[in-house]
């Protein structure tokens, strides 16, 4: 499913957080948003998973206006892993994943066999089948992220939106999460901090700074020393990944004052 963000502007209490952003994620593409902290990545993604209503502009899923759909309908097409500290209620992993069925269920209907099968498959798919009976709060960061991916898969969406899915994870967990996401075959829109991870896993990158898209393209074309100096204020060298040839960055230390 194709996602079109069409001239979206977000203004909160007089501050423009996102200005005139347009971008497209083609069906099955993994599209990364990169940019410094506070550049508007999360704000833009929140508009896509409907935690925030854009001040102007539209988001379309295969041409259908997201804001014209009711929220349950859009949640059946699009799932998200927001960046948020999770509450202190001790849900089990199975219960957390079952929440993914919410947009498919009536208010008081019981879980059907299909719901249960879908959840079990989603857990297996995210490599978290063995965690089903654990308490969610007792999991490690990487395990939690797997379970949340399973919840998103249980929504049976066609689009997956992720906001910094690798935050607070160790390197192995970061690679696990991104390869899971990549292997899902869904259209993926993700904010990422780590530029090297983004270069390895994304088909397309959009660089956002000050609420605007600075440049877009394949990682190889986008991640240039000039751009990194302009947007992030750092000096970097490009080297090809020895095995895959993907562009990777080596950063210089800042000059000592």
């Amino acid at each position, binding site marked *: 499913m194709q996602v079109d963000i069409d001239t979206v502007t977000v203004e909160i209490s007089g501050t423009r957080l996102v200005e005139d952003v347009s971008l497209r994620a083609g069906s099955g593409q993994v599209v990364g948003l990169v940019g410094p902290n506070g550049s508007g990545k999360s704000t833009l993604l929140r508009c896509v998973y409907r935690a925030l209503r854009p001040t102007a502009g539209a988001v379309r899923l295969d041409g259908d206006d997201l804001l014209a759909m009711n929220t349950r309908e859009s949640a059946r097409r699009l799932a998200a892993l927001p960046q948020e500290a999770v509450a202190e209620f001790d849900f089990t992993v199975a219960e957390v994943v079952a929440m993914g069925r*919410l947009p498919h269920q009536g208010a008081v209907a019981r879980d059907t066999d299909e719901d249960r099968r879908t959840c079990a498959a989603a857990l297996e798919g995210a490599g978290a089948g063995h965690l089903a009976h654990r308490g969610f709060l007792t999991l490690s960061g990487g395990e939690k992220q797997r379970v949340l991916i399973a919840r998103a898969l249980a929504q049976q969406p066609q689009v997956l939106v992720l906001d910094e899915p690798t935050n607070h994870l160790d390197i192995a967990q970061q690679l696990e999460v991104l390869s899971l996401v990549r*292997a899902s075959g869904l259209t993926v829109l993700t904010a990422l901090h780590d530029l090297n991870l983004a270069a390895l896993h994304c088909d397309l990158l959009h660089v956002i700074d000050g609420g605007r898209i600075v440049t877009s393209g394949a990682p190889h074309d986008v991640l240039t020393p000039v751009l990194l100096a302009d947007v992030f204020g750092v000096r970097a060298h490009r080297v090809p990944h020895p095995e895959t040839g993907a562009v990777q960055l080596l950063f210089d230390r800042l000059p000592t004052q």
Partner: protein
Amino acid sequence: MATLRDRTPAVPHRTTSGGPPPPRRVPLPLLVTGLCVALPVSLACGAGIGASGLSWGEALHYLWAGLTGGSIAPDEVSSYVIVWELRFPRAVLAAVVGAGLAAVGVAVQAMVRNALADPFVLGISSGAGVGANAVLIFGAFGALGVWALSMAAFLSALAAMALVYAVARTPRGLTPLRLLLTGTAMYYGFSAVTTFMVFAAEHGEAARSAMMWLLGSLGGANWSSVPIAAGAVLGGLVHLGWSARRLNALAMGDETAAALGVDPGRLRRELFLTTAAVTGAVVAVSGAIGFVGLMVPHAARMLVGADHRRLLAVAPLAGAVLLVWVDILSRVVLAPAELPLGVLTAAIGVPCFVLLMRRRTCTFGGA
């Protein structure tokens, strides 16, 4: 759905070392059945236990007569009145109040995402108290007759919630932490207003009943106070039960709820209304009974887990049974004097609260 199984992760997934065993839970049907048996038994005990020297046999006989509309001898009338007109409606009202407080506790905890919240923390109960005391002491809303107390409590609970909501709200939305802090501040404000009214009251008797009422009492219970309270509590339970799945989503965070197709702002507004209605109705008949809304949801959560579908099946029943017994205790501990219910619930609740704080690294909802 795409399967991810063909793709092995970079490193085989590791489990957290020696994670705790899965939470042990009580089977839901067993628990609900148990509570459904315990509730009528408790109600019968409420009718049977008391200061006057009635035997159990007599008490049950009068209770049966009242329930079935049977006849009694003329010389039994005063005993019949004690059982059927005083004790039993009081026990029924205790059950209604307990169920309402427990249900509202569940709703408020999901709303602010914190297991240590209850209607008191949000200033709702004390807000309802302002309205109810205005009626008790100054005779406000006199035109509404029997509805005056409930309506005043409901309206002032609603106004209190609206005020807390308006103050806590920011252009970026409503965070649980702001809500809790605002609610706590308002709680003191509303309590001060009530206390002021008590002191300003002209006649001592009204002030005394208001003081009694500040700590919670079902001493004024009779059949006429049951329908409004029971109606509000039942309505609240239906709405909460209907929203159980959405409450799960809300408990995971506003962003997650939105991503799951639940509008967190709208759900929170619905919960505001339900909470105000139930709290208003309950406070109007029983005063301010603390800790039930805190303890019962938590205990229920330990027994059946955090899923609101199960939680809302268990917590109201447990709250009902608990409060029937608390009320019985309040009548017998210092008989013939009555202990305020708030004293007993605090005696049970404070140790529970401390244990709860010790057990959890409490973040109070985060921001």
